[in-house]
């Protein structure tokens, strides 16, 4: 089964969940990074060329740092995100979902060379596509993952219905279904809501167009509205 959920149990006894980033967003992030790197090297070259040989020396130093340590420095000091990754909303973390450290980031980025082999990141992409957690060779050796950076979800406004107490006992599955139906009223189209409400409403004897309002009322009541 293809599942991009990744779970880790923390010492506190809870399970943290993360969504793994797939090859496409990672390749795009890399493309952005390489553009930035090339642009910087070129710009600096234009400036330093006036300094003669000393300028060349500085440029060589800089291009060395950009080639090998650009991702390391960003990942360590910028919470796992190079500019490209930031743009794609993804982030590098250790296997246990702790922030990436200098040594793990170094290993995963130095091994880029092996991932690049034999050309155009063939090994890296092959490994990413085959691995259930989308790891390239560098990630395998370093024990790192690329995940989507979670934004705290915006709390959706509840529909403006009055709570509607039911005098019938609902089992857990029913409660969960009705509550999530209520909470997702802005994400589902009106017609689809009507369809769904008719299916669920059937067991309450509600088949008409009032079914949506009825379920929302029950949902708000279940959530604790009074």
């Amino acid at each position, binding site marked *: 089964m293809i599942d991009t959920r990744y779970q880790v149990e923390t010492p506190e006894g809870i399970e*943290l969940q993360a969504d793994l980033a797939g090859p496409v967003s990672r390749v795009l992030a890399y493309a952005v990074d390489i553009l930035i790197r090339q642009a910087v090297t070129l710009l600096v070259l234009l400036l330093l060329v006036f300094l003669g040989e000393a300028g060349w020396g500085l440029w060589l130093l800089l291009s060395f740092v950009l080639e*090998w340590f650009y991702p390391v420095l960003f990942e360590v000091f910028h919470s796992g995100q190079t500019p490209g990754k930031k743009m794609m909303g993804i982030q590098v973390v250790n296997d246990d979902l702790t922030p990436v450290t200098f*040594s793990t980031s170094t*290993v995963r980025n130095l091994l880029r060379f092996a991932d690049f082999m034999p050309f155009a990141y063939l090994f890296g992409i092959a490994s990413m596509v085959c691995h259930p957690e989308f790891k390239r060779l560098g990630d395998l050796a370093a*024990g790192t993952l690329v995940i989507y950076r979670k934004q705290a979800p915006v709390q959706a406004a509840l529909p403006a219905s009055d709570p509607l107490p039911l005098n019938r006992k609902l089992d857990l599955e029913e409660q969960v279904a009705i509550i999530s139906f209520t909470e997702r009223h802005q994400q589902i189209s009106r017609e689809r809501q009507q369809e769904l409400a008719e299916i669920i409403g059937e067991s309450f004897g509600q088949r008409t167009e009032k079914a949506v309002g009825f379920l929302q009322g029950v949902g708000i009541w279940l*959530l604790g509205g009074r």
Partner: protein
Amino acid sequence: MRQQDFEHRYGPVWQQIEAVVDPASGVELEAVGSGRIAEALPELYSQLCHHLALAKHRRYSGSLINRLNALSMRAHHHLYRHNHRYEHVFLKFLLEAFPAALHRNARFVWIALACFLLPALLMWALCFTQQDMIFSLMDPGQVRGFEAMYEPGNHAIGRERGSETDLMMFGFYIKNNIGISFRTFAGGILFGLGSLFFLIYNGLFIGAAAGHISHVGYQETFFPFVIGHGAFELTAIVFSGAAGLMLGWALIDPGGYTRLVALREAGREAATIILGSALMLLVAAFLEAFWSSHAGVPAPVKYTVGTFFWVLVIAYCTLLGRVRGES
């Protein structure tokens, strides 16, 4: 407890955590200073974990669980980031971690040394005795190029050159040599083959160059030049090869672990070694650019200092880092 009561009761706790882990979020801290809340974070975080577990158990809605999960994730990152503020990381690395890692993985260092040294000695002997041997490895243009570099009459190496050129060469050595070392390491993940290739290739090449230079009789410019920085450069290349071989061996013979776990463990050790050899190459590049090329220094001084560097490097690798391992 209904979900809304739950949110209502514990919302303030979540907001305080949000204010600590994400100061930019705009959440206002309560009257207490942020410093005190930051101190209370471990306590708040364990409450949050409890809330998340409760919310999952009680099947509260997905949006609440997502919100709590995202928040715990950020607090988790906040709490578990590595804090080295109070340790002398750099000194500790140089005096303990790096040499100790070399000792723990001595067998890889010896293998890498053999893979580098044997081809080098072989090629040295062949090129020293046979004039044409060098052309099996380099094309005539290359040979002419480096012959010209070390020709005693030409003073290309010995000329007093400007500090600007020194700086340029420094940049070049950094980019070139450390690049070679990193590639030698990275190739190791392909079951060690990449590291073996780079070690043997560099061994052959360096041995051939040294042998040929001796053959044509330019020793007195070549060896004073290379002896100083060679101490750091050649050993560092061997070390990065050893780091690569560790990765490869973890895949070939993972011992009692799965291949992935063995690879990750080897990667942790290898990271120490590769960073150490990068530092050594930094020293080497500095010496090569500013000391080895310096013409004002007579050859005997260079030999003496060079020998001192070799003794220093060998003493560093053999004496340090074994105290704890053997106790």
